[in-house]
């Protein structure tokens, strides 16, 4: 069911919600979180709502969409309430703000937050430079940005490094989880050797590739090389060098990866790129600070860009890295 409340106030919205609950009876009170989506006024809200509705199958939520309309207009709040089949397992409130109100979204959101339940703020695109200092961002326990959806993804990541506060997270980081899981699982198996070098290859504007390199640099405490791949898509390969041979995951088509380890047959693994709704569902599973993401951001400056260590070493005819030399001696 969709109810439109043109030119309204939040107290009227609240009143209508209670009324709908009492007459419909079906709207459950068991929402576990409030999700605030900050978007523009065009078609973006619908895409974001769709992803949020899908994610709500796992985490029933009240979704509040703050759609910021034209500033050159009279102050006005148009609200829309969606419940039942039109809202997945959530209830959706779309608030369209015009004129001076457009910059005062927080004031319209506060009265509509669920009591006690955690608040998640998501900017599908155009995230503020400092999410935690944004008036709406400051309300959230968790702030989700998406570097890949920004005009300059790599620059956006640099901004995240500077503005990180506990509770920040980025969907470019979430997209990595299956890669990270595979790499970690590979090191769970013998031989238990030190990783002496690592290289990550991906599209030049793929923030996930940078984050993967940053994560490896932070946790392996070695220089990690980040190479550009002309076509992508996304991350194309990750190589961990060990004395007995390399652990390699190569995914040329964005769908299926190949895992190669010394002394073992080559294995193929489904490694499809993850959709926003899957990432969102994963994000909502944990609402505490993501220390690993923080460490990864701190690892970004350690990345060595754009040179291939093996070919460089081979063409120059020089010895292996000093770490490798130690392992061999």
């Amino acid at each position, binding site marked *: 069911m969709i109810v439109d409340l043109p030119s309204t106030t939040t107290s009227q919205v609240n009143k209508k919600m209670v009324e709908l609950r009492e007459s419909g009876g079906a709207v*459950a*009170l*068991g*929402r*576990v979180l409030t999700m605030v989506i900050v978007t523009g006024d065009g078609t973006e809200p619908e895409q974001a709502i769709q992803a949020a509705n899908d994610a709500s*199958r*796992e*985490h*029933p939520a009240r979704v509040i969409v703050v759609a910021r309309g034209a500033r050159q207009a009279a102050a006005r709040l148009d609200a829309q309430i969606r419940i039942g089949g039109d809202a997945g*397992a959530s209830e959706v409130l779309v608030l369209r703000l015009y004129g001076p109100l457009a910059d005062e979204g927080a004031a319209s959101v506060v009265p509509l937050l669920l009591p006690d339940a955690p608040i998640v703020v998501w900017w599908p695109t155009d995230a503020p430079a400092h999410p935690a200092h944004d008036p709406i961002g400051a309300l959230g326990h968790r702030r989700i940005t998406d570097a890949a959806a920004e005009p300059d993804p790599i620059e956006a990541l640099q901004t995240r490094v500077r503005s990180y506060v506990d509770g920040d997270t980025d969907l470019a980081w*979430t997209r990595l*989880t*299956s890669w*990270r*899981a*595979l*790499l*970690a*699982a590979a*090191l*769970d*198996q*013998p031989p*238990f*050797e*030190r*990783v002496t070098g690592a290289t990550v290859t991906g599209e030049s504007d793929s923030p996930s590739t940078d984050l993967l390199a940053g994560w*490896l640099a932070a*946790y*392996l*405490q070695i220089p990690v090389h980040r190479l550009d791949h002309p076509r992508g898509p996304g991350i194309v390969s990750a190589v961990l060098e060990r004395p007995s041979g390399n652990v390699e995951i190569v995914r040329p088509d964005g*769908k*299926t*990866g190949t*895992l190669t*380890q010394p002394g*073992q*047959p080559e*294995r*193929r*693994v*489904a490694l*499809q790129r993850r959709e926003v709704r899957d990432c969102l569902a*994963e994000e909502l*599973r*944990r609402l505490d600070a*993501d*220390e*690993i993401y923080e*460490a990864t951001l701190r690892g970004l400056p350690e990345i060595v860009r754009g040179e291939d260590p093996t070919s460089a070493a081979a063409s120059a005819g020089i010895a292996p890295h000093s770490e490798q030399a130690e392992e061999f001696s």
Partner: protein
Amino acid sequence: MTSAEENPLRDPRDKRLPRIAGPCGLTIFGVTGDLSRKKLMPAIYDLANRGLLPPGFALTGFARRDWEDQDFGQIVYDAVKENARTPFRQQVWDRLAEGIRFVSGSFDDPDAFDRLAETVKQLDAERGTGGNHAFYLSVPPSMFPTVLTQLSRSGLADQSEDTWRRVVIEKPFGHDLESAQELNRIVNEVFPEDSVFRIDHYLGKETVQNILALRFANQMFEPLWSAHYVDHVQITMSEDIGLGGRAGYYDGIGAARDVIQNHLLQLMALTAMEEPLSFSPSHLRAEKSKVLSATKPVGPFSETTARGQYTGGWQGGQKVPGLHEEGGFASDSTTETFAAITLEVESRRWAGVPFYLRTGKRLGRRVTEIAVVFKRAPHLPFDDTMTEELGQNALVIRVQPDEGVTMRFGSKVPGTSMEVRDVTMDFGYGHSFTESSPEAYERLLLDVLLGEPSLFPVNEEVELSWKILDQVLDHWAEHGKPEQYKAGTWGPSSAETMLARSGRAWRRP
């Protein structure tokens, strides 16, 4: 770095990273059965889809069918399409399908097992399963010795330091203490106890695991969780289906052995146990064993237990046959389809609190729940008329369906007079969490592959359960026969009387 514990990429704070099983394969005996098609194969696909199976995972079927690998692959494909929980993805399926093998043969055919050993060896070479294999015996217990002997003879059960072999078995774990011990002996001859995984699918259910979270993560409930405040506990598992087509398994076994011995006693142990030192498998088991050791059936059994057999009638808009008309059951079969027993836990916490366990087929509806019923308030500062409609407070853990927790307490009826009536407060898993929580078998299969034993009952628990139940079973064998009850009701009248004697009544679930 010298072991997996020192993996630099694993950080205990990293809660996103799932634990993926190491390289391994799974062999299922009895792939043509219902369980395997409806639960196991879909669960394997769902695990693969969630990225929890290792790259190169291998699934081998073993049955007496003249199938090739691709025929078996087709069977798995159909089962996945029909029953998987997660959406179908072609790439995931393609990767899984590459690792599907089939070995044709009967359980007593040494050649077939040699071929299986050969297949397993090939998988290690081609798919990199690394010598790690689990064998799922989805076969009748009478076949266990045959299969286990063959596994041992063909060297399939041999594990070295770097590889593992595990065996998964299903209930029934024997039909009394003696046979359970015999079964354990046979299994342990081939596989050491830490390689044996006994599946009690109830323990894989989210709601069952939530009993521990509810009790030990909250401050609200545990203080009330004792004889001071609890009047009695009712644990019910009822089914609305009958036993058509299951005579071969069920006749002579009966409801108590089929359900009380495993599912209900495990639920009772989780409800009554003390707080474990930690959630490590050994600590959990220690507490479960302790509470099961302290549990005794309450006599005299003619008054504290009940058993019944359903008769034909109308149930839920359908005419259904009685047990004696079901194919395969003798017309004088004394197999019980309803069983209820009274237990007590001899500990300071629970002394004097009866635990009533009941289960049955063709009952009112399908439901499993644990109801903790509290004592009445010691003093009610109200007139009698004010609290006439007030019952006992209760906390009900709904295990299935509609998973959740219900609390029942008194509330004032709106109006000018003070009148108190029972109301309920509901927590529904479906409301607060995922609609798509993993199936019990997904969780359990993954735990087998990871070698994570906490959700599997061990030898000792199985034997302790039989010790509790055997006394009742012996009494039933010597005295009378099951009482009849109409299909679609809540069991025989003796079940009502066994509670009525102490002024209590079964909850209607």
